[in-house]
């Protein structure tokens, strides 16, 4: 009696087992099928674009590495846009239009923003020119050296 019962359970288990396998197989196939049909852009393709954009709400975090829910949504948006055939530039432009210039890793080269690109090289150049002048005047300065040495001697002024 006991044996019989156990055999039934065994059978049931086996059926359940097969059923489970079948379902898994079926979902797997249909999943893959759906995948192939939509031709969803891969995560890497999405990240490629996202890495060039900054998260519009968090500070200084590229979109591809930002873990918040909002960033996740934006990455999905990029995925949708890529699937629709938008180019990288178009997607970036979409982000700029919607969320402002701050989503770009660098300010766009317009108007006041040119200062970003011009000012540091200009200052460095100026410093370089001044330094060069100093260097090129080195030999001429040699003759004045004697005068400086004379001055040096009275450079110990103590107030306290």
């Amino acid at each position, binding site marked *: 009696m006991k044996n019989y019962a156990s055999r039934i359970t065994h059978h049931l288990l086996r059926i359940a087992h097969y059923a489970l396998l079948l379902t898994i197989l079926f979902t797997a196939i249909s999943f893959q099928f759906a995948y192939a049909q939509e031709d969803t852009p891969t995560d890497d393709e999405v990240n490629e674009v996202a890495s060039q954009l900054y998260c*519009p709400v968090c500070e200084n975090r590229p979109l591809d590495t930002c873990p918040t*829910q*909002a960033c996740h*949504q934006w990455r*999905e*948006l990029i995925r949708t846009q890529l699937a629709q055939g938008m180019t990288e530039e178009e997607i970036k432009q979409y982000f700029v*239009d*919607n*969320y402002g210039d701050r989503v770009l890793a660098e300010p766009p080269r317009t108007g006041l923003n040119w200062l970003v690109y011009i000012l540091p090289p200009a200052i460095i150049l100026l410093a370089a020119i001044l330094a060069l002048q100093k260097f090129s005047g080195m030999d001429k300065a040699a003759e004045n050296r004697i005068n400086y040495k004379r*001055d040096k001697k009275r450079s110990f002024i103590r107030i306290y």
Partner: protein
Amino acid sequence: MSELNQKKSVPLWIQIIVWVCLAGLLVLVASILSKRQQGALKTGDAVPDFSMTLFNGYEFEGKNEIQFSDFSGKIVVLNFWASWCKPCEQEASELQEAYAFYNGDVIFLGADYVDTEPEARTYLKKFQITYPNGPDMGTKISQMFRITGVPETYFIDQQGVVYYVKVGPFISLDEIKNIIEQKLK
């Protein structure tokens, strides 16, 4: 300083350049600081004109775009929200109820701050929000108001002057009503 200003001291023009640059820099940083410390648009500040394109399916007097200057003479409740913002959900239905309650006597506006459209639509649908809502394109409006976060709600009186700023979600419908009643004749 003058006692040593002999032949060998720093030429006056260089001193002037140094001080001018220094003063410029300090003024710059100081004004940045003072701007940062201003925070949100304050009570008593007049609201500059702005326009906002609404989400598809939303309209104001038949148009898909609103112009703030068209609202003069009415109280405007401008709410900044986003679909990813959890606290916004607490107040969403209350705002819709308040909108329905005043039935056009008070203008309700929703500005969707940095968001994606599909999620924003889902959010609007979920809370059955019917008052005019649109994306804050390029964060121009939120930057103009210098919002500190979402949700944030601005109550603007008939003259276009901010008279109350609510940072964070409303707790109840009555809270919204009370603020509106202050100025509603």
